[in-house]
């Protein structure tokens, strides 16, 4: 606060008490902000003990032609079609339930809210907002099929299949 007295002299009127009150409140504010940053950093894990997104699906000859195989543990389908092998996420795009292959109907169906998908992931009906995404699939040096669950690939493209 700068006050001007009658003679025109500028006088600094910040009292000692006022100064220390502001200093104290300011320090508390800084400490509170620091605590918030500290808590955020602490709560964000630096190391995760989660399964790798890359799944080994074994040798291609495990999957007969025109078959759809669900791996329940990793939540993916390995599909051996005429065009080659491809992999589909088995997790419904609606609310994350695990879908199932219905061989008698030739469709993929979600047990939770009735979404149905074609063998290539395209939605037939139900509340699912998007088709089931395709996952990157390739052969490693040992001849095993590997699927990267963290990488989506465009459906039905040449590069999205593996041919053996």
């Amino acid at each position: 606060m700068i006050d001007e007295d009658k003679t025109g002299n500028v006088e600094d009127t910040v009292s000692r008490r006022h100064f220390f009150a502001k200093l104290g409140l300011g320090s508390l504010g800084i400490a509170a902000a620091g605590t918030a940053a500290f808590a955020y950093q602490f709560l964000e894990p630096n190391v995760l003990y989660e399964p790798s997104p890359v799944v080994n699906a074994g040798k291609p000859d495990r999957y007969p032609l025109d078959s759809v195989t669900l791996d329940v543990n990793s939540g993916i389908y390995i599909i051996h079609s005429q065009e080659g092998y491809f992999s589909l996420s088995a997790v419904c795009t609606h609310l994350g339930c695990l879908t199932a292959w219905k061989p008698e109907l030739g469709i993929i169906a979600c047990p939770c809210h009735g979404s149905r998908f074609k063998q290539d992931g395209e939605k037939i009906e139900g509340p699912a907002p998007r088709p089931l995404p395709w996952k990157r699939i390739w052969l490693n040096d040992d001849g095993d099929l590997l699927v990267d669950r963290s990488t989506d690939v465009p459906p039905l493209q040449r590069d999205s299949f593996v041919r053996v």
Partner: protein
Amino acid sequence: MAKTVDQYFDGLRGTRVWRSIFRSGTGSSTLKRALAIQQNVFLHLFSTKVRTRMLSFSATWYLGTLTLGTFFILVATGIPLMFYYHPSVPQAYADTKDLQFVVSSGLFLRNLHRWSAHAMVFLVFAHMFKVFYRGAYRTPREFNWVIGVVLLLITLLLSYTGYLLPWDQLAYWAITVGSNIASAVPLMGNKIRFLMLGGNAVNANALLRFYVLHCMILPLAAMFFVAIHFWRIRKDGGLYSHASEPETVRAKAAMGDASAKEAQ
């Protein structure tokens, strides 16, 4: 002219929201200041009036308050540590190592928890010595001394149960030795040890039991007895002050009468 900090607070205290939470209202009359203590759920355990000299360092060395302070630090650091600790045999030691080396600020929180635990045990003993040598345990405060002994035991049990949780060699053998000491109780010693460990050896059940005791049962028991401990201070006539004790006052009055008679 800019508002001062005080004026901001006065404005805040006048708002309807503030008045709905703190009902006593503003004002510095004796009544208002007493109501501010008496109508607050946390503060109503304490006396509405305290002798000024009892607030000086020399009166108590603040040992009880400092003990409470370490307890608050232990709660505030212990809860975040629980976010990263699994009380299971395969994970407990690895989680402790992760807290030391991987988790952001985990080392700081763990060390603060450990040092505060040591400080709390020290301060509890210091507090008890101070109370003992001042004679503050005597009538009418003898029951509060008993509650203090219970709180000492809870503090030591918290230390002991926390000791096992890192699940390292030190912890394992310390609890092995400690539980064997418990089995020295006549007649039911082995039963006590069996119940304490949840089995015949320090293993998964013992780890889980000590974890539940350390994080739930003992802290809740401590809070329960601390509340009684503080409430009893008010009920027993405030903090012990020799000059204000009824006996001292009576003796002084008698002396005063005697000297007054002599003067006649």
